[in-house]
């Protein structure tokens, strides 16, 4: 089997560091202190019982939860069985795979925005099935996007089943690895069934899992019943999953970023310990969706420098721990793809890549994760491309120092027509597609288009490309059947789109 890794890329110049090793250690050991002394609340009896059986202190048991205090040894044991590398495949496993470890960098979309910007009218409206499919098609076409998430909540189906429809819409649009979301355990079971069918059975799934599940504990320091249900199910079934806390500095976490990192790590460590108790070797990726509250508007900012900084810090911590990592970039607080969006995306993409995050999500997010945008996705693809050029660094060897060429050309000559230039310029001198570098007359002759207009045209161009379907009709119908069966069960939950005016 020949396997092309999706955009295999190692940061050769991981020079961006925001924490020293001593600081990382201080954060880690503080998280262990919080975990063993403050404790975390677990709203899941089976979950806290299992932790209790293995040495955690179970205190303050209420009707629905318990305060769980985990001694450091339990974390050490869990870390000794946690896979240091997690691999997720695309729907056609021989086409795409992501190997998440150390400095491997992969970018992908965000998920579940209630709104989307209509690519034709520019209007902000509720997302629907076709939108999610179209975003997946964009992901399929864009070379720097390696995995995908549902850039929109499917709202033209029963609300309790939107997760299955989103998975179907994504499978229609892309063969890249997918990070799914699930309404609940039932939604996860249905999507697992769909994945088994798509990849050719359970055995094939175990060899080449074609999705990971996105799970978020509830900051501060709480793990809800639905979250633990999903975590335990994933660990049992060997479904790779992301366990990403979403603390908000100043609101659900300390305003000081070190404190936020300590709290987030404590939340992640609970996931690591519990998953390894359910099944040693259960694959997981720990997160990084962290920001500071904007203190004027009270929003969860997705374009803040604090988000970039915290993401970078968390990446360093997870690398030090040797755990695959989840990060956030390609997102913005702007309301449409505009100068602010480009500015914020450039900043957070650059810092995420330079620090070497593994699974970097939320490309395509606008408005604090409430709206998705094709323009944001297409533009981010090129920003990533540009940053990747920086990651390639400047290899210094005899050939690259080119002393013989300098000698040959000598003072006053030129390198334009030299073989050395001809043979090496591609890949070394980055060439943009959407960024404009024409001179004024050329730019004017090509329609005096702004960057935004060029990006928009590219979105439409991709959407209007004719493509062969990625799945055979029989396969599609089988998957759709699962969604429809779920709909029948959740009939009374239909969300009337007219309701929103």
């Amino acid at each position, binding site marked *: 089997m020949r396997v092309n890794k999706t955009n295999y890329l190692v940061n050769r110049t991981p020079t961006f560091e925001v924490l020293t090793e001593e600081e990382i250690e201080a954060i880690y050991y503080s998280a262990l202190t919080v975990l063993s002394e403050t404790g975390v609340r677990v709203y899941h009896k089976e979950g806290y019982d299992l932790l209790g059986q293995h040495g955690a202190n179970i205190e303050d048991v209420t009707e629905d939860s318990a305060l769980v205090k985990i001694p450091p040894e339990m974390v050490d044991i869990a870390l000794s069985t946690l896979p240091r590398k997690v691999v997720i495949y695309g729907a056609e496993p021989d086409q795409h795979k992501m190997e998440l470890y150390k400095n491997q960098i992969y970018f992908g979309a965000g998920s579940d925005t*209630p*709104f989307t910007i209509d690519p034709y009218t520019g209007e902000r409206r509720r997302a629907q099935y076709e939108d999610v499919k179209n975003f997946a098609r964009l992901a399929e076409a864009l070379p720097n996007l390696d995995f995908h998430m549902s850039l929109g*909540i499917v*709202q033209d189906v029963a*609300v*309790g089943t*939107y997760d299955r429809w989103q998975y179907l819409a994504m499978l229609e649009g892309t063969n890249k690895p997918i990070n799914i979301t699930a*309404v609940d355990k039932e939604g996860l079971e249905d999507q697992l069934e769909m994945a088994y069918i798509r990849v050719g059975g359970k055995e094939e799934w175990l060899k080449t899992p074609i999705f990971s599940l996105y799970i978020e504990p*509830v900051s501060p320091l709480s793990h*809800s019943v639905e979250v633990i249900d999903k975590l335990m199910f994933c660990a049992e079934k060997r479904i790779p999953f992301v366990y990403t806390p979403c603390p*908000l500095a*100043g*609101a*659900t976490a300390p305003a000081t970023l070190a404190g936020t990192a300590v709290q987030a790590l404590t939340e992640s460590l609970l996931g690591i310990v519990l998953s390894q108790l359910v099944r040693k070797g259960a694959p997981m990726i720990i997160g990084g969706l962290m920001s500071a*509250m904007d*203190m*004027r*508007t*009270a929003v969860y900012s997705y374009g803040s420098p604090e988000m970039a900084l915290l993401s970078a810090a968390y990446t360093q911590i997870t690398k030090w721990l040797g755990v695959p990592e989840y990060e956030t970039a390609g997102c913005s607080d702007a309301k449409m793809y505009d100068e602010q969006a480009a500015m914020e995306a450039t900043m957070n993409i650059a810092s995420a890549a330079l620090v070497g995050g593994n699974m970097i999500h939320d490309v395509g997010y606008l408005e*604090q994760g*409430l709206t998705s945008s094709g323009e944001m996705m297409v533009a981010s693809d090129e920003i990533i491309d540009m940053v990747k050029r920086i990651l390639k660094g400047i290899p210094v060897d005899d050939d690259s120092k080119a002393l013989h060429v300098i000698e040959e050309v000598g003072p006053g000559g030129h390198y334009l027509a030299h073989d050395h230039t001809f043979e090496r310029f591609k890949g070394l001198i980055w060439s943009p597609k959407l960024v404009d570098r024409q001179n004024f007359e050329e730019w004017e002759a090509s329609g005096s288009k702004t960057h935004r207009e060029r990006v928009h045209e590219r979105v439409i161009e991709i959407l209007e490309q004719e493509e062969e379907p990625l799945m055979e009709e029989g396969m599609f119908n089988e998957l759709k059947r699962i969604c429809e069966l779920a709909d029948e069960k959740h009939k009374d*939950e239909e*969300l009337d789109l007219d*309701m*929103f*005016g």
Partner: protein
Amino acid sequence: MSDILSDISTLVIEGNFEDMPDKTNAAVEEGLSAEEILNNGLMPGMDHVGVEFKAGNMFVPEVLRSAKAMQAAMSIIRPMLAETGTETKGTILLGTVAGDLHDIGKNLVGMMCEGAGFEIIDLGKDVEPETFVEAVKEHKPRILGMSALLTTTMRAMERTIKALDEAGVRDTVKIMIGGAPVTQSFADDIGADGYAPNAASASDMAKQFAA
């Protein structure tokens, strides 16, 4: 305005909750009524805070400090207000609806409304319609506020309103709703009395409902 009332306004604006009890007691000793302290000392201070916050000159933690200073005075004058039968702003019952665990927005709305002089009863998150109904019956709030951040839980707002209706208490409260995916037209559709996109406008709306 007497000096002491303008001092009280200043303490609110500065968020000085430490000096507030002494100042409030001093005002009472001077013979000022609780109503005067509230209407001419505390409220002008909070109104100023509201204006500054909307103008972007004050930040959330500062506003919450001011609300805390206001509370420090309220805990002293509240019993007196009750004694004289003075109309207070009333009670707001708050909760994040069933199935939803997002609570920061709801907490913020609660604190801002508290700062506007309301009493807040917070039912927390993941609150079932029946729990809302029981609490409305028990506490007889003037306003009910519901928060939802998920499309899957927005409908729990509709269910709650229906449950209130069936229990015959729908018309005893004004209902306001909010949360990121919620919109005015959704509020209209499910028969809520109002929608507010942020905490400051939530408190403005509550004031209107209470007027």
